[in-house]
């Protein structure tokens, strides 16, 4: 089975600090893959490399069979790699609906290039159904800057899905959420279409084990272990790493 996303021998240095050293990663179509490890392990750096906001000094990133290493975040998003940030990134002065419409437009424009009048309507329709799905229909007309943190997180997921991604990068989606909101988030992520592959970076192992099919453990910028959640849970290497002070 070929990889949807394949990162090979990725290395990133910040001055004398090696953030990533020769990391390999493969995510298949529809797979839920988690990246875990202690602070400074290189999880977010790897996500940045895949999302296009950090250029690696060495290694390659291929997506859907194509080398995307030279592409920026916008071009990667148009190819199907969308990201949810650690701190919900929304457009605060636009309403929830307008936020999702903006996120849906690149995809809609590409499909309906010759019917410009219909693009806004199509995006609006898609935004309505996504907000309904996320339970945000009641706040559709509220500026995103006035939404609660948990609602902004749901809105950001709706925005990411509006672009019909093939791979969703989730950077600590549970950060700052209450227990109830985490429960809702788990439901939302489980309800994602199987066509969407997920690469999840998360400190909370309970969340990782609940959501992922496979897990990669990073430590000091290198791959420590990779396998199913059960294999990772029982791995002596990982236990040792976590005994050394991983949260």
């Amino acid at each position, binding site marked *: 089975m070929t990889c949807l996303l394949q990162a090979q021998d990725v290395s990133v240095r910040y001055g004398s600090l090696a953030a990533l050293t020769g990391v390999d990663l493969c995510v298949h179509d529809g797979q839920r893959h988690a990246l875990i490890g202690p602070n400074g392990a290189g999880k977010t750096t790897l996500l940045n490399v895949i999302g296009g906001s950090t250029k690696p000094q060495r290694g390659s990133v291929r997506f859907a069979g194509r080398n995307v290493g030279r592409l920026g975040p916008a071009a990667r*998003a148009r190819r199907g790699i969308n990201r949810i940030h650690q701190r919900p990134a929304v457009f605060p002065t636009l309403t929830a609906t307008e936020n999702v419409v903006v996120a849906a437009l690149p995809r809609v424009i590409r499909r309906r290039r010759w019917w410009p009048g219909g693009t806004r309507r199509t995006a609006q329709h898609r935004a309505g159904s996504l907000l309904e799905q996320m339970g945000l229909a*009641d706040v559709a007309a509220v500026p995103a800057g*006035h939404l609660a943190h948990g609602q902004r997180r749901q809105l950001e997921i709706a925005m990411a899905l509006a*672009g019909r991604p093939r791979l969703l990068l989730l950077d600590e989606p549970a950060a700052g959420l209450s227990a109830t909101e985490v429960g*809702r988030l788990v439901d939302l992520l489980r309800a994602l279409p199987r066509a969407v592959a997920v690469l999840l970076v998360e400190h909370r192992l309970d969340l990782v084990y609940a959501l992922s099919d496979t897990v990669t453990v990073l430590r000091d910028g290198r791959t420590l272990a990779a396998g199913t959640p059960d294999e990772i849970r029982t791995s002596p290497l990982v236990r040792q790493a976590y005994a050394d002070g991983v949260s």
Partner: protein
Amino acid sequence: MMDEVIRRVRRSVAALVLVGLVVAPWVVDDYTAAILARTLALALVGVSVALLTGVAGMPTLGQTAPYAAGAYACAVVGSQISDVGVVQLVVAAGAGAVLAALTVPLVVPARGVIVLMITLAICELVVTVLGRWRSVTGGTDGLAGIAAVRPFWGLPALASDQARYLYTLVVVATLVGAVLLLLRTRVGLVLRAGRDDETRLRASGHRVPLYLSGAHILAGAIAGAAGSLLVVAQQYISPADFGFDTSALLLLGVVIGGTASVGGALVGAALVIAVRDWLFGVLPGHAPLVLGVLFVATVYLLPSGVKRVRGPRDRSQPPTVPPSRPDATPARDHATVPELRA
């Protein structure tokens, strides 16, 4: 209730201003009509400043550059090729757009204060070129004796200040209406989103530089068209019409009117220019002082501009946000998810 009252008052004031603008030529003298026409032209440049500063998030001090390009292109065409207003408008808008397009590589990649500095430098360069290119621009003496404009082929020339004012009013109303319509399309939505968070917009897959370049060129075309209206109103232009003080006053007017509002920019720019021109006669030498006081008072009392006077429960206030509907995605307590208890 209070919102409704404020909304009605706002609409009434807007309607009164519109009626006043339409009937003005029949109730004011020639001099005032000429000042009003010039003020409208500058207010249209203010709209282009608001489009860049408030909508696209690129604060600018350089819109007098395409304004000057449009005015001189119009003056040259009006003197040597055609006295038809539509032709002059198209040429002026084209000249403004071309100048803006040429400066895209300098302006669009920059952000914040850097944009202000680059656009100011462009403005100063253009004014310097206008002052030295005597064979075309007449140098610092400017171009005078430009023929009165005819709005369309077959129509008589606009011989009076009142007629020229009405022509200016129609063009400004048409262009402002077009800008307002554009801002209601997806292009306006994407520009506003980019002003909020450009990085997020890129992450959604939008070609942000393309939108910003388009906004810059469009604003240049609007300023260029405004330059044509200045020529129609004054029948004389010189580099002094396009200096730094005009740029600064326009930005001041847009800030006073509310940067994110096209109507507010129109009102603010018109207010500032009118205060400057009328007080020049009434309080000689004191107009800058009054403008300074007006600016400080606006920033302190109405930080969002005069157009943004809002009721107590208007959108600037955080609305009551209902919680997400639980039935759409049933929320479960974290502890009730078996896997999460591990």
